[in-house]
Each structure stands twice: as structure tokens, then as C-alpha cells.
């Protein structure tokens, strides 16, 4: 246990020195502020409280931003140690590889949680300041917060796996960006295109829901929009997926962090210093 906490402490300190902590928080806070300001015009027409509307916008934002921040923090985790030449020495210490990885995960997850909490906190304060009814949206904000942390954990694990497989920071960075584009942007576009071509057939009813649940980012979006009262405020893929039960998307966002970490450990075990 001390080995894990010691690793987490050192990783957190490194992230602090490298300005990763400041950058993650600034990025989340800035986007949350912009969304709060932009979301203010939409009230009234929807009939939901201010915060629920903001949560709906924050969900769409988090789908892009949280995986990006997580991948940016994690892509260097193992490749960086390999390139600096610090890995061989580290691996001769009594700490096991899962322990080392868990220490890194704890530190990075703490930073991500901090960034998400501050970003969403700003949005909540802004909404509550102008709309007393916004208290009704607090539960969906809370749900967004912990599910964002789980989404971050998933992409941290994926980032570690990429880092271990690439073994070079530059390669890992390229892979991480490619994966982010693929899973977050192109995946949904591909599904939409398939739905249009399928025109309500087998793909739309059977394959599409499964494909959404298989992607951690889509499952995250589904869960938050389906569980929130503000579903109607959101457009896009979620509208087509109303048939997917909440427990299914919840299961997906709970299982993904574990699966991603297991993949990361398996990839890390293959690294020979």
C-alpha cells in the first residue's frame, strides 16, 4: 500500500511541476464558464431549470474534454519512463507492475477529479446565482461528476496501454490522438451514417444499441442524458437511443474503467526494459 501511495504522491508532484494540474483545471473551468454563459439564452423555451440545461451541455463537452485530458496525462506514463531510462531501475524495486500503474492512476485520477469538480462547480455556482430553481439540477450534476471521473479512469487506462505498447512518447502521442478521434468523433459519425443507410432495419434495432454501449464515451453520454430530465434538451445520437435502458449504460461506464486498467496491466507486463 505504501508503494502505491508513494508512487501516487511522486506522480502528483511531477504533474504539479509540469503544470498538468493547472492546465487541466484551467481547461475544464474555462469551458464550463463558456457553456454557462452560452446556455443562458436557451432557458424558457425548454422549461427546465437552468442547471439541468447546463448539465446537458456539460455532458456533451465532457465527452470530448475528459477523454482528451486523460489521454494527455497518461500517454507518457510508461513510454516516458522507457525514454528517460528510468524504467529498468524502477522495475528492480520490490513494487510490482500493477502497483506502479495503480499509483500513477491514483495521481492522475486525483488531478482529473479536481479539474472536473472545479469546472462543474463553477457551472453550478453560475446557474444557482441566476436561477433559484437550479437546485433541482444538482443531482444530475453530481451524477455527471462521478461518471466523468469514471470516464476519465477509462481513458487513463487506455492511455497507459497505448503508452506501454508504443514504448516511445512520440508514438504514444500519435496513437492517443488517433484513438481519441476514432472513439469520440468518427465512431459516432460512422454509426450515424450506418443508421441512415440501414433505414430502420436490423442494424438500427440490434447492432446500434450494442455499439453505443461498447464505446465508453457513448455509454457515458447515454447514461447522463437518459438519467437526466434534460434529455429533450440534447440532440443527436442520444435521441435515437432512447430505447436503451439506464442500467445497461450504467453497467458499461462501471465496467470500462476496470477493463481498461486490466488491458493497461497486460500491456505493461509485455514491456521488457
Amino acid at each position, binding site marked *: 500500500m*505504501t508503494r502505491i501511495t*508513494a*508512487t501516487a504522491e*511522486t506522480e502528483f508532484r511531477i504533474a504539479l*511541476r509540469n503544470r498538468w494540474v493547472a492546465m487541466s483545471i484551467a481547461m475544464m473551468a474555462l469551458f464550463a464558464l463558456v457553456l454557462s454563459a452560452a446556455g443562458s439564452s436557451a432557458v424558457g423555451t425548454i422549461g427546465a431549470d437552468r442547471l439541468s440545461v447546463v448539465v446537458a451541455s456539460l455532458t456533451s463537452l465532457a465527452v470530448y474534454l475528459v477523454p482528451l485530458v486523460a489521454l494527455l496525462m497518461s500517454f507518457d506514463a510508461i513510454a516516458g519512463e522507457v525514454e528517460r531510462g528510468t524504467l*529498468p*531501475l524502477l522495475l*528492480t524495486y520490490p513494487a510490482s507492475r500493477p502497483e506502479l500503474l495503480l499509483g500513477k492512476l491514483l495521481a492522475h485520477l486525483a488531478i482529473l477529479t479536481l479539474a472536473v469538480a472545479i469546472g462543474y462547480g463553477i457551472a453550478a455556482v453560475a446557474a444557482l446565482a441566476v436561477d433559484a430553481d437550479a437546485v433541482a439540477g444538482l443531482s444530475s450534476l453530481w451524477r455527471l461528476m462521478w461518471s466523468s471521473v469514471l470516464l476519465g479512469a477509462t481513458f487513463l487506462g487506455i492511455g497507459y496501454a497505448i503508452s506501454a505498447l508504443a514504448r516511445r512518447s512520440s508514438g504514444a502521442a500519435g496513437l492517443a490522438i488517433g484513438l481519441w478521434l476514432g472513439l469520440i468523433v468518427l465512431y459516432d459519425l460512422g454509426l450515424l451514417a450506418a443508421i441512415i443507410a440501414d433505414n430502420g432495419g436490423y442494424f438500427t434495432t440490434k447492432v446500434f444499441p450494442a455499439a453505443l454501449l461498447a464505446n465508453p464515451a457513448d455509454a457515458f453520454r447515454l447514461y447522463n442524458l437518459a438519467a437526466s430530465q434534460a434529455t429533450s434538451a440534447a440532440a443527436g445520437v442520444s435521441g435515437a437511443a432512447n430505447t436503451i435502458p439506464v442500467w445497461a449504460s450504467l453497467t458499461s461506464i462501471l465496467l470500462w474503467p476496470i477493463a481498461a486498467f486490466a488491458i493497461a496491466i497486460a500491456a505493461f507486463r509485455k514491456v521488457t526494459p
Partner: protein
Amino acid sequence: MTPTLSLQCLTKTYGAQRALSEVSVTVAPGERVALLGHNGAGKSTMMKIILGLIPFDSGDLQVAGAAPGTAEARRHVAYLPENAAFHPALTGLEQIRHYLSLRGESPSLAMDLLQRVGLGQAATRRIGTYSKGMRQRVGLAQTLIGKPRLLVLDEPTSGLDPVSRRDFYELLDGLAADGASILLSSHALTEVEARTDRILILSGGHLVAEGSLADLRRMAALPITFHVSPRQGAMAEVVLALPEAIASGGTLTLSCQQDQKLRLLARISDLGERIADIDVQPPTLEDIYGRFSKRAGQ
């Protein structure tokens, strides 16, 4: 006494290339052993196998009574990599505190360790600002954590100035006196001559020689060289008396085996006044080392 380290017929191949061929070595507690070899001779490979960082193909290997790389073995082994590297954003103190925690020791011992390697002044500076020699000292400080039974040091004195090098060997003497076994690698015999109990020479993955420096000197059986300078005008006479000598400039060069040394010396001294000066050159450490390295290359 059970050996701290025991290798039996250890073999490691990379594809078609043999990195190590049936290497057998044992190291007893408190013994200081130097591992010598050219670049690519298999030193680093052997060390990494001992540390459990890379697997081996066949043979038997016991590290502190356990299989290499197991939690038990790693608890008793300290390692100093060649060109020790650390995260540049951390200070020396933070880095050593981290390593102490990983070994389950109290982080408060960090300052003491850094002072032992002469880094007390720079402890709170970031490692990114350190010189190569200072990084090497951080690396050395972390090998002193706990009470390692085996220290594996890959070219530990590279980057150290002669004074630091002497301090370093004094530190090792203290550790060995406490019962720690030390396996250190080097590519120069001159660096390790007086400071190790035993020398192993690796060449092309084969263990080509093993023993104390005196043993190696005897086994190498290299000739001794004499440089004889005749007095002015006596050159022709001396050349006649020493027909096997090779003349170059104003001096004559002769060589003979160890056991012929006194006889040759007697012949030269018989020439008395005709000799101005004589210079006897035993084989250098580099000659001895070169001799063994070359043999295996054939």
C-alpha cells in the same frame, strides 16, 4: 556459506545471436567481483538477467536464494544502471524519499543517504540541474537503501572524477565488510584493479577468464619488455651480444617470458659499462585484459 549469487550454465540468445554462452559464476557474501568486457560482450545482459529484467533461455540462476525478479529477490538486490536517469522535475531529496518508500523504509532517511554520497548541498535542487556525476551519485545513494545483500552496479564509476571514484570504492569496501556482495562492471581493468577480490572477463558472451589480478597476470603469460640504451659508441658491441634485440633509434628492444626474466637481465648486466640505461616493462593491465578479450574473439 551459501552464495549470494549463483549462475550455472546460463545461456541467453537474441534470435540467432548468443548474448551469453553457458556462463557459470558464484559470488559469496562480502565478495567484490568485477565484470569486464568490451561493449556488447554481454555484461549488461548478464546484469539484467540477474535483476530479473529480462528472461534467460537455459541454465540455473539463484539470487539471494530466490529466483531472479521475484519479490523476494528484488527485496535483497540493489541496482545502479549505467547512466543512471531520474525524472528531471524532482529534487534529489524527493527522488530518494520515493525510493525509500518503495523499499518500505522511512523517507526521513533520504537526507542522510544523500550526505553519504556527498550530495547534501544539492539535495533540494531539481535533478534536471544536476551534472552527470551528480546523477550518478543519486543512483549510488539509492543502492544504499536498506541492507541489500547484492549490489549490481553497471559501470558505476563512469562520470566520476578520480577523487569521487576513490570515495566510491571506499563506500563499497564498507558495504562488503558488512557482508554485501558486489558485482560491478567496467570496461577498464585499470579502474578496478585494487578494489575487487575477483575479476571476470566476458567476451562475446563467454566467460573467458576468472580470478584475482595475480591469477590473470599468470594465466595471460605475457612477455616482459626490456628497453636497453647502449652507451655512445657501444651500439655495435651490444647488438652482437644481444642478437635477438630489435634496434630502433638509439635503443634496443627485447622481450622474454616471465621465467626467462632473470637470465636475460643477467646477460644484459654482463655488458657492464657498455649499457647507459635499462627499462623493464611488465605487461600492463590493458595488455592482460586485451589478451583475454582477443582469445575469445578467435
